[in-house]
């Protein structure tokens, strides 16, 4: 049994609601949410990096850093949200 991880014992049935109303065991909902977090992370922080590039005039350096950073943050947010609550 999993003794390190989940602090609440939730059933395997999809459709059961958790505390915040999102169905945390419906894989479709979670999959699309993770895609959405990744895309938002890339767009938001890639956009910030792109604006920084235009201000400083440094080609595409900060854009790429922003994209990769936003990607990592999106993964982090998705992981934190869907594997702990």
């Amino acid at each position, binding site marked *: *049994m*999993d003794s390190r*991880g*989940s602090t609440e014992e*939730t059933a*395997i049935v999809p459709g059961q609601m958790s505390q915040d109303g999102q169905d945390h*065991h419906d894989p479709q909902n*979670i*999959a699309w949410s*993770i*895609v959405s977090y*990744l*895309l938002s992370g*890339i*767009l938001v922080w*890639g956009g910030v990096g*792109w604006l920084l590039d235009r201000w400083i005039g440094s080609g*595409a350096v900060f*854009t*790429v850093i922003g*994209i*990769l950073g936003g*990607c990592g943050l*999106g*993964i982090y947010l*998705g*992981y934190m949200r*869907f*594997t702990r609550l």
Partner: protein
Amino acid sequence: MSVLAQVTGSIGSVGYGLAAIGPGIGIGIVFGLGVQAIARQPEAYNLIFRNMILGFAFAEALALIGLVMPFVYGT
């Protein structure tokens, strides 16, 4: 030397198509093995699910970076 064959048009979309092959296979492997693991030991569902989601997020990230890169570099 004469041109024998040529691909014209948007090469960004060709790039994205090529970039999506890897994550497609990767996500398939992640979820396939995850489902197998759940079938072998259903009481470990939570643990397997968490790791499955982590693997999916990493593989999907590569596909989305491939989607965005053509816009960064123009065409």
